[in-house]
Every structure is written in structure tokens, then in C-alpha cells.
């Protein structure tokens, strides 16, 4: 693989890794608060549909983004209701909401636009267009770094940069603020939070809301930035890959960045079997590349590369009275 190709693949990596990153951080907030969320996929899908639909009708990507976040929050709310208020099974709730999203997105899009569950193609202000980082022209000429700056870092939509910014922000929130301390505590031992006079329920709902917002951005990115419109099942399992990345990252923000970018890279090179063949001098079946993120996750889960210990109270509804 020559440098130009590498640059190209890395550019793809960032574009494809962004929705994973956003969803992964979404899952991080939820799981750190002790709420398992298999429903990242469904929330992204809903958000993609809503933002695609609203951006198409209003012509504004930003309004679309708002709609996406709203739709995702709706699902997050149901998940919160099921797992926090009604102390239901969080895994089942997530699975169920994914199915609801699969069905609802197509139903709604088909009803609104009659285009087979797709939303109309977006153009102009209805999409987030790429933005050039400052100094691209001058820096592009610098050998080595120049192309990297111009082609990998620059030229993405604003949502990509928002996603990247979310990483230090999440880290700061989690480890440097009162909210973060309480959030981490509630995922480890909700009783400690409760006896300290802090509401477990409110904390967990806050986490679920953050999850909803981030999934909303992720979905909107899919429909209004990566693509120009919503298509059925367009998230294509990204919610699950994000979950895998979260485990890979051991529930930590910076590691989440690296994990999602690794998975984004795997997706990017899976698009280019020709490049792999040229680099490795052997043919690797595309399905094997497609399966690689999942296989890596299983290996991590198996504890062969360091133990992935989830937040201790994860998945258990908080019940005071036996």
C-alpha cells in the first residue's frame, strides 16, 4: 500500500469510524451508569430516518439533526422507562427496540415519501457539507504531513469534528466533574450513590438521555453527512459494532476513539480488497474482513488480551427492597 492509498483509506476510516465513535460514546454513558444498551442500533436507525426525513422536508441539515436527536431520545426514553422505572430486562428492551426501529423507520419513511422506505436524496443545505480546515492550501504541500492533513483530517463534515471533540469532552465529564464521579459510581454500586443522598433514578435517566443525544447525532450523520438521505437498515449493524468497540475500549473514552477508528479502518479496507491483495500479496475473502471486528471483539471478551470488566452494576435494575 503506497502512501497515497493509505491516506485515502485513512480518510475513509475517519468517515466510517465517526458513527461508530458517536454510538460507542453513547453506549459508554449508558453502561457506565449501569444500563446495558443493545439498542444503540435502533436509536441510530430512528435518528437517521428522522433526520433524513426532516432535512428533506425543511431543507436544513441542522433541523434534521435536531429531529434525529429527538427521535433517538424518544427511544432512549422508552428504554429508560423499561430498565429504570419498571426494572425490566435491559437486554430484552434493547433487542425489542431494535426491531421496533427496523419496522418503524420503513413504515414512516414509506408513508411520508412513498419511495420504498427511503427518504428523498438530500442536497445543498439539507446535508452537512465537508469543511476545509484552516491552512489546508499552505500545508498540503508539506511532504508527508501535508497530504495527511489535507486528505485525512480536513474535508469532513462538521459532525465528524463534533464526534472527535466528544472524546476529550466525555473524558473530562467522566473524570473531572461531579456528574462524572456520580455516574461512574452509579454504574459500580448504585447503593453507594443512594445512601449518599443522590438520586439513582435521576442519574440513570441523565445517562440515558446523553446516550440518546449521541445516538441521535450518529444517526443524523449517517443520513445527512455520510449519505444523502435515509435508506432502510442503513445503519447495517453499526450499533452492535459500537458495542463491540465499547468492550474493546473497556468503557473508556480515549480507548473508545482508538477502538472505533480501528473498526472504521477495518471497514475501510474491507471496501478495498484490491488494496489488501496488493499489500499482503494474498487474497482475503471479503466476508472474512467483514467479520473481523466481531471476531476481534470475541477475542477481547474471552479475556485473551486483558480482561474487559464491565461496570459492576451493569444490567441490574436498582431495587432497594428485596
Amino acid at each position, binding site marked *: 500500500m503506497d502512501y497515497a492509498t493509505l491516506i485515502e483509506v485513512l480518510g475513509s476510516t475517519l468517515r466510517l469510524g465517526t458513527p461508530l465513535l458517536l454510538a460507542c460514546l453513547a453506549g459508554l454513558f449508558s453502561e457506565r451508569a449501569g444500563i446495558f444498551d443493545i439498542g444503540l442500533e435502533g436509536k441510530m436507525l430512528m435518528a437517521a430516518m428522522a433526520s433524513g426525513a426532516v432535512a428533506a422536508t425543511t431543507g436544513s441539515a441542522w433541523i434534521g439533526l435536531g429531529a434525529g436527536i429527538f427521535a433517538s431520545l424518544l427511544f432512549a426514553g422508552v428504554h429508560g422507562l423499561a430498565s429504570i422505572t419498571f426494572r425490566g430486562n435491559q437486554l430484552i428492551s434493547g433487542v425489542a427496540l431494535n426491531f421496533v426501529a427496523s419496522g418503524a423507520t420503513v413504515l414512516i419513511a414509506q408513508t411520508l415519501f412513498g419511495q420504498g422506505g427511503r427518504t428523498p436524496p438530500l442536497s445543498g443545505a439539507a446535508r452537512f457539507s465537508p469543511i476545509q480546515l484552516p491552512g489546508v492550501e499552505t500545508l498540503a504541500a508539506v511532504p508527508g504531513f501535508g497530504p495527511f492533513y489535507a486528505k485525512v483530517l480536513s474535508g469532513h463534515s462538521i459532525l465528524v469534528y463534533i464526534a472527535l471533540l466528544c472524546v476529550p469532552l466525555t473524558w473530562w465529564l467522566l473524570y473531572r466533574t461531579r456528574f462524572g464521579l456520580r455516574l461512574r459510581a452509579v454504574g459500580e454500586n448504585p447503593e453507594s450513590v443512594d445512601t449518599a443522598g443522590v438520586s439513582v433514578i435521576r442519574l440513570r435517566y441523565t445517562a440515558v438521555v446523553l446516550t440518546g443525544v449521541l445516538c441521535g447525532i450518529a444517526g443524523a450523520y449517517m443520513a445527512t453527512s455520510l449519505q444523502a438521505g435515509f435508506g*432502510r437498515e442503513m445503519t447495517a449493524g453499526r450499533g452492535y459494532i459500537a458495542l463491540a468497540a465499547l468492550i474493546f475500549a473497556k468503557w473508556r473514552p480515549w480507548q473508545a476513539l482508538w477502538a472505533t477508528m480501528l473498526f472504521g479502518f477495518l471497514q*475501510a479496507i474491507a*471496501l478495498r480488497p484490491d488494496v489488501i491483495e496488493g499489500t499482503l500479496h494474498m487474497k482475503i475473502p471479503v466476508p472474512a474482513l467483514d467479520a473481523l471486528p466481531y471476531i476481534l471483539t470475541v477475542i477481547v471478551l474471552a479475556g485473551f488480551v486483558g480482561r474487559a470488566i464491565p461496570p459492576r452494576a451493569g444490567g441490574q435494575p436498582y431495587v432497594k427492597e428485596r
Partner: protein
Amino acid sequence: DLGGKFDKSFNEAAFNGAEKWVAETGGSYKQLEMQSEAQREQALRRFAESGANPIVMTGFAFGDVLNTVAPDYPDTKFVIIDMVVDQPNVRSVVFQEEQGSYLVGMLAAMASKTGTVGFVGGMDIPLIRKFECGYAQGVKAVNPEAKVVMNMTGTTPAAWNDPVKGSELTKAQIAQGADVVYAAAGSTGLGILQTVADEGILGIGVDSNQNYMHPGHMLTSMVKRVDLSVYEAFKDGPALETGLVVSGLKDEGVGYALDEYNADLITPEMKAAVDAAAEKIKAGEIAVHDYMTDNTCPVE
């Protein structure tokens, strides 16, 4: 096919053909979209059971199930597009896509400034190789030095419906210098052509006339008159003749699209060259190799 009815390409063409028939005759028809491979047989049987006649299906993937279903309903006529099914009550319609692709290949080579053109196919099957091979032959006919960058989206029907991947592949081709990209990939093409427009190069649509999608960025479209085939099938009704129908340049079953959206991009010289080539193909003076006859392509 799995690309979805509104792929603005193959399936939409079929849909338009049916709609045209409805508009003209006031007849009614039922349509069903496949969501998965396993549904095909049920859908086909359901239509046959309900007395629909004829039943038109688009896409090679129906071939196998049609082979088993057709004998069960000897009184029903079936039409399959893009596939040959040898049953007494089946009309098989195949197109000489290599011919149309040859023409758009020529246009691509003439429009290209870099001397590198691209092709993004959908699912990696001989049918799509046939598009690619015809295209490459056309390109080389104009500029033997030209480079054709070729990518397939995938190996399964999901490749018809993966705009994200289409978009990424297009970006990769642009990075390799391509400034004209031919999208033969169903709904995936939406992503390909979107990227073409975003990146300011030229694209070539497929099956339907897709020129209107991104005016100024659509060089042309390789039209394949699936709509006509469907229309004719419906018009013929239950009495339609079965057997193999091969449709090509000669009967205007394939061709390149020229309309107000791309008029500025096609110079008179280009049009003259292509039209001349079309005549020669019709006359048999230029033989465009059909990939599917021997699964090889004479040009790379």
C-alpha cells in the same frame, strides 16, 4: 430486485414501464418488493395463485425459483428480465448491455481529462462484468492509453443497496485519478453519483436515464429499456409469446441518454463519434465482446 423499487435505476425502470401501461390502459397490477432471498418463491406463488397473468419479475435472482414455480402454473405466463429460464410459459428478456456500455465508455474516454475513468459495479457477477467489459472496450476504442479503474461493491445482493460503500469506492477511484465514473450498481449508484456530484467529477448512470439527478455532473446514462419490456409484457397480456428475447442497440433496447441535463457536456464531436459507433455496432462492423459468452474480457 433487492436494490429497492426506488433505486432510480433498474427496478424503477420496471416500475415506470408498469405505470405507463396503467396510464394507457387503465389496467391494474400488483407489485411486491423482495426483502430477502427466501421470500422469492412465496411471492411468486402468491401472484400465480391469485390469478395474476402475466407475472413479470426483474432480476437474475428469480431464475432458480422460477424454474421450479413455472411448471406448477402452466396457464400463467411469466416474464423474467436479465436471465434465461427455459420453460414453455416463460419469456426471458436479456439485454446486450455490452453495447450500450461500449457507447458510454467512449463518451467517458472522450470526456476524461486525466485519461483515467472508473467503473463501480454492484454485485460481482458475470452480468455486471459484462457491463464493465463493454465499457472498457468503449474506453479503449477512443483512447487505448486510458486507464479503467474497476471496483465491485460486494459479492451478495446487499451490494445493490450499499450507497455508503459506493460512495467510499468512488472516493477511492477519484483518488486514483478517475474523473468519470460509471455506476452500474442499483441503489448503490445513488451513493456513487452523489459522491461524483460532491467531488465535482462526471458520472454515468445506468438502466434508467439518471441524468436529471445531478445536472452538470451526469455525463450520460446507459439506458436499458426495462420499462419497455415490462410495458410490452403487460400489453401483450396473458397471450404473450414466450421464449428468449434479446434486446440491443438494434431495437433500441439499450443506448445512451442525451437530454437537457447533459446537453452541455456532450459536444457535437462526441455525439457524432458515438452515433457512428452505434451504427457500426448495429451493422455488425464493430463486434463488442460479451463477457458472459466466455467469462473473459479482451481488454483490461
